[in-house]
């Protein structure tokens, strides 16, 4: 009986090995975005804008036009692109330090303007590329290289919940938090990515997908332990769900 290939790498994802550490979920996020680009048939008109961090090498992996942006500024760069090329599909891909710390102003105001772009947000609760420092999303008590005694809310504040913060803004059409730590969650994440790009295709406004991801290297955990940490700790601090889905006009 003939066998059919039912699962393979998406066409928009180049046939290259990721530089990511074992168990890092950046690769899963990359794959889901490429799958959605293929599904919508928009490879030839999509422009990706990675932030600074482990995700910056997106340009090696995505077979798309890609523009680098300064740390935190990807939503502003995306705004410039979208206003010049309103028919193109523009997305940013930013980590938690990039989007939730240095780029907080740009993400809030881009969302509030209702820029018709899509933002993919990688939340792994730590600065990855710079070596594991505290991120705005670091959990209370979590040890990082700059919170060696654990994040203390009395002096370092609380993890910022970006999806909850952005969803109420009038300009936001879609805001969802998904996780990539189990196959069933990956399937839900795929739907959110498809929906976010679908909204942009329909000129529906700003769409936002937050991915909960593991950073085994900087968490100091095995990939197996990372799944547990996401399940037991991250999901408590960052509840999953679609926080907003406004039908595109």
């Amino acid at each position, binding site marked *: 009986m003939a066998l059919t290939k039912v699962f*393979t790498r998406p066409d928009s*994802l180049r046939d290259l090995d990721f530089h990511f550490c074992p168990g890092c979920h950046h690769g899963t996020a990359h794959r889901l975005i490429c799958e959605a680009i293929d599904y919508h048939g928009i490879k030839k008109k999509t422009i990706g804008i990675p932030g600074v961090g482990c995700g910056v090498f997106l340009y090696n992996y995505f077979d798309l036009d890609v523009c680098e942006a300064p740390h935190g500024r990807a939503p502003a760069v995306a705004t410039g692109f979208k206003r010049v090329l309103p028919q193109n599909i523009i997305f940013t891909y930013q980590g938690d330090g990039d989007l939730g710390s240095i780029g907080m102003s740009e993400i809030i105001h881009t969302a509030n303007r209702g820029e018709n772009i899509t933002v993919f947000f990688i939340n792994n609760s730590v600065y990855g590329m710079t070596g594991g420092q505290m991120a705005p999303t670091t959990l209370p008590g979590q040890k990082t290289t700059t919170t060696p005694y654990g994040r203390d809310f009395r002096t370092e504040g609380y993890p910022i919940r970006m999806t909850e913060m952005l969803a109420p803004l009038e300009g936001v059409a879609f805001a969802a938090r998904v996780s990539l730590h189990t196959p069933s969650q990956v399937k839900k994440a795929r739907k959110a990515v498809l929906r976010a790009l679908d909204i942009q295709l329909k000129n529906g406004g700003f769409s936002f997908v937050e991915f909960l991801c593991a950073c085994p290297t900087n968490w100091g955990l095995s990939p197996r332990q990372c799944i547990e940490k996401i399940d037991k700790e991250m999901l408590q601090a960052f509840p999953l769900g679609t926080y907003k889905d406004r039908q595109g006009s």
Partner: protein
Amino acid sequence: MNRIEIRDESCKGCQYCVIFCPRELVQIDKGRINALGYNPARFVDNPDRPCRGCALCAEICPDALIEVYRKEKGRS
């Protein structure tokens, strides 16, 4: 028979596929070290509980290294 293909030369041995295969058909190949320096994952089918082609391993592989082949009965 349904089967998967793992591009094991690029596998980093994170074991997510091992953890999530509902039929325990993926193992870490302790006898082999690939060019990246990891013990890669290996597909070992079992006639008592053969691969269903459910693709959970492919879904969870963060390096997009798994292809899934299924007997043609209409894809899910």
